[in-house]
């Protein structure tokens, strides 16, 4: 597996990535996650304006074979979702950190950020899962 994990991102143990910009967190799923899911054919996005707790279900990702839940990596309000992935869910496979971003969250509890995983910790976690 030749998977990429940008070092400037933070990761949740549930395989979402987070890119912080001020108090806005952009969220997607990791290269590992898209690889495990296989071809993604539909993404159910959260409602804009919804305020959701960290760890709660924000949406659903349907691959050809199975449905998986997308979890909130941080508590906050959904302020934007990526409308392009409704028509091109394959962006999650081809560009998980770019065109395949899923949602932006206005973070309500910045303290949670430091509990996210660094790229090193995240890669360790994946290695454990694969063992």
């Amino acid at each position, binding site marked *: 597996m030749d998977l990429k994990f940008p070092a400037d991102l933070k990761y949740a143990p549930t*395989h979402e990535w987070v890119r912080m910009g001020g108090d806005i967190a952009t969220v997607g799923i990791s290269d590992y996650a898209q690889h495990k*899911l*296989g071809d993604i*054919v*539909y993404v159910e996005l959260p409602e804009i304006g919804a305020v959701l707790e960290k760890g709660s279900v924000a949406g659903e990702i349907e691959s*050809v*074979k199975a449905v998986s839940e997308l*979890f909130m990596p941080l508590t906050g309000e959904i302020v934007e979702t990526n409308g392009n992935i409704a028509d091109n869910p394959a962006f999650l496979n081809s560009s998980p950190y770019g065109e395949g971003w899923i949602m932006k969250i206005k973070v309500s509890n910045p303290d949670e950020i430091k509990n996210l995983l660094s790229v090193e910790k995240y890669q360790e976690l994946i290695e454990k899962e694969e063992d």
Partner: protein
Amino acid sequence: MEFITKEDLNGTKTPLYETHVKLGARMVNFAGWLMPVQYESILKEHETVRTLAGVFDISHMGEFIFEGPDVIPFLQYLMVNDLKLLEKSKGQYSCMCYENGTVIDDLVYYEESPERFRMIVNASNIEKDFQWINEQIENFQVKVKDVSKERCRLAFQGPKSDELIAPLVDTDLSTLNRFYFVFCNLCDVPAFIARTGYTGERGFEISFKNKYAVTIWNALLKTGAGAAGLGARDSLRLEACYCLYGHELNNTITPIEAGLNWLVKPKEGIDFIGKEVLIRQKKEGTSRVLVGLNLLDRGIIRENYKLFKNGVEIGYLTSGGFSPTLKKTIGLALVETKYSSIGTEFDVEIRNKLLKAKVVPTPFYRNI
């Protein structure tokens, strides 16, 4: 997100197991067999079969040889289809049913001679079928042998399958009509080749001794065809609306309910197991029937999702998913017959929501 990271990899290996692993396949346990669900991408493999040709390892399926003077009367007794329509060098699709008309298995048998037949059955039903067949055999002069584990089976399917396989065989397969078969040399080794398939494309199903597996697999891939896994096999058969045992057919569903009315033949003067129920259902209809659906709202529907009309449950999905060829969500469902006409709309319950679906003509796609 959570995924299964540990497959139960204590399964039976086909002669091509190592070959699949080397190709980077994701292996899963299917009916006790370790099988490739995909190599790189189910969508790509699906498209390759629809536009060029794909090679599938289907060695997990069962293969029985029937021999003896009573093979034809015996199979007439076990099967709902009529072997009078069969001739030497031809195969036939059929269901084997219980007395109550529900399905033990759906399968294909091939007449090699009036006293020798080859049968291909579903992987999940090999032991059950073999036992059932032997329980019925008492008054017939027939011997049945399970050769599943001695032989490798491949499917070679796609619009270019004829021209790609031609240089590898010592016979002209272009004149082989649907459901007919030949014994010939494939890559200079003896093989059984039938023009049958499960994808909705032209193609072949092939059987030969295990020791030739890697040679033939590699030769078929070298033609330019792509390796295709069980994931694509399922999405292709769903588009083509072929029943999958355990989904559209099982021991609670009859062939008539599954829309296989054409399969159940009157067979006048011939007794067969399930005849009374099935002939009656064929004449009078059934209270539920299989339909094809398009999902009108966005989303993906999958097997066992429930269907509702005005809040009342009217059936369930037997299969469902994204159609890579049609780029929409399709499904097969068992519904109350009064809601089965083309154009009928109802709701599919997908977790806590209801999405609109509509009954559409089937198959969704075939190119044969």
